[in-house]
């Protein structure tokens, strides 16, 4: 019957979609929007760093070491080797942002897939996957990251591997719980009764119900990832000098806190602002997607 109706009429009675409702809520959430704008601005500035910063982040100057902000055109002063802080902070944002997002994205793909499979098929597969996750869950996240990265040795790859492994278990658990809840619902059974394959049931019916919760949780992990990645490079693991990275800059300037405290506090402030913004955006997103609220 409905096929006979003109599509415009259908659209008029159809309730606004889920994404529409979220977008409408977010549009009025100015706090979340402004922090999101700040993050977009940071990403843009990091991408276009050569256009924004006038100094070479690697150029050292023995005469201009640890100078205060504003000294001879150095907007935020210079570090212990006389390198321009503003340029280094901008170039460092690339590494810090990448190490915040990349491990979470990788873990989302791997952990999410494992969780959906475990939740959907249940039985022995669920047992094998989830018990393995329990073992990794039994490590405090900092300890696991430090143990893996510390044994392999420093470097971006080992840091990425360590952080990805840290985030997989929690994402896998969320995906597994959500999937097994959806799996028990009637429409999944109906789809299977009509002969739909497991893959098409997962793609058509399960993912749509699992992904929103998973995305919101993953977004809250980005700030953790930024903090952990900076922490690793602070310890001398992760990103290696002279590549600028906020955590490693903070470690390098640690000895100079008595001489130029303001400049030394800058990389930490940058980490703090970015991590805070990611948390605020994640909270806003969670709030907008929580239909009950």
């Amino acid at each position, binding site marked *: 019957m409905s096929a006979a109706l003109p599509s415009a009429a259908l659209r008029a009675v159809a309730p606004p979609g889920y994404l529409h409702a979220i977008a409408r809520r977010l549009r009025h959430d100015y706090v979340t929007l402004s922090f999101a704008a700040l993050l977009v601005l940071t990403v843009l500035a990091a991408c276009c760093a050569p256009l924004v910063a006038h100094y070479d982040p690697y150029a050292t100057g023995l005469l201009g070491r640890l100078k205060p902000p504003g000294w001879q055109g150095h907007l935020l002063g210079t570090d212990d080797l006389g390198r321009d802080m503003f340029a280094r902070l901008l170039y460092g944002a690339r590494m810090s942002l990448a190490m915040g997002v990349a491990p979470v994205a990788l873990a989302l793909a791997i952990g999410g897939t494992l969780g959906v499979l475990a939740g959907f098929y249940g039985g022995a597969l669920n047992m094998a996957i989830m*018990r*393995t996750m*329990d*073992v*990794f869950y*039994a*490590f*405090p*996240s*900092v*300890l696991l990251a*430090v*143990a*893996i990265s*510390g*044994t*392999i*040795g420093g470097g971006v790859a080992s840091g990425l591997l360590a952080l990805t492994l840290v985030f997989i278990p929690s994402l896998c658990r969320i995906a597994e719980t959500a999937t097994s809840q959806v799996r028990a619902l009637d429409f999944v059974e109906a789809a299977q009764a009509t002969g739909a394959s497991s893959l098409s049931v997962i793609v058509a019916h399960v993912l749509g119900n699992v992904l929103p919760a998973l995305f919101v949780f993953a977004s809250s992990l980005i*700030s953790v990832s930024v*903090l952990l990645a*900076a*922490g690793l490079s*602070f*310890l*001398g*693991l992760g990103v290696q000098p002279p590549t600028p990275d906020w*955590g490693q800059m*903070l470690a390098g300037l*640690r000895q100079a*806190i*008595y001489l130029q*405290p303001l400049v*030394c*506090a800058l*990389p*930490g*402030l940058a*980490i*703090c602002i970015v*991590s*805070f913004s*990611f*948390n*605020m955006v994640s*909270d806003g997103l969670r709030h907008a997607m929580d239909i009950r609220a």
Partner: protein
Amino acid sequence: MWIYIAKRVLYTIPISLGVSLVCFCLVYLAPGDPAASLIPPDASAADIATIRQLYGFDQPVPVQFAKWLWRALHGDFGTSLQTGRPVLVEVSGALANTASLAAGAALIAFVLAVLAGMLAAWHRGRFLERAVTAVSTLGISMPSYWLGIVLIIVFAVKLRWLPATGMGSGAATFSWLDWHDARFAVLPMLTMALLPLGVVMRSTRAALADTLAQDYMQVLRAKGLAPHALMRHALRNALPQVLAVMGLQLGYLTGGSILIETIFTWPGTGFLLSKAILTRDVPLLQGTVLILALTFVFINLAVDVLQTCADPRLQRQ
């Protein structure tokens, strides 16, 4: 309830085994020959052969794991390459230092966070709630290693109220009752309290807001209960959940103290780990990680059991 607790205790066994397996595999993650990471670079060919045989590197990996596990069960976690002392001796002294720091930090964080969470839940939708939310989000966003540096700048360098780093008269003679020693713990403890403060504030506020929105709270309100009596009812229902979050945080503090201890050169397990990483002392790294992870497993077990005992709703299941 007892069946649940028994199950939970038994469950610790496979988890501990899995944790041990992961720690065992760490040696194989290290670049190069696993034996090479255990042997000092200046060892002679004969020594290398002896160590290979002693650690069983000439045998299949499962056999190696079994032997390694057997030794660990007997308290032999290997020997530090740097100091030549048994890993267990190195770790146990450091663990006490970390645990006391973590316990103090957890206590500070818990008391402050529950008070702030109560304030926020009570002033729902008003300025105070937003302030508490902002502070707690800042708590989970701020890198603790940076806060440590800022605290050192302010309180040790500028104001000269507290010492910057170290442990006073040294780990051996350190006394919590002597202010001369105890003042060294103030800054690291405050720094450590930051993250659990943020996390527990958030969960207290959420748990209390959930409880206050329940129908039975409406009934109590309709009966004309005073605000503080209402809060007492809500707190009693929300507290087991908050305690569980706090317990988990205590475990994270004990296992994840590496950054804070590195900044304050506090001779705990984290400091030991960072030394092990710096000197590429793999046996020490492996042993410390194993002991810390097992401690975390047992803290989690204790938290779960305590939560079951504290929450009558869980007892009935």
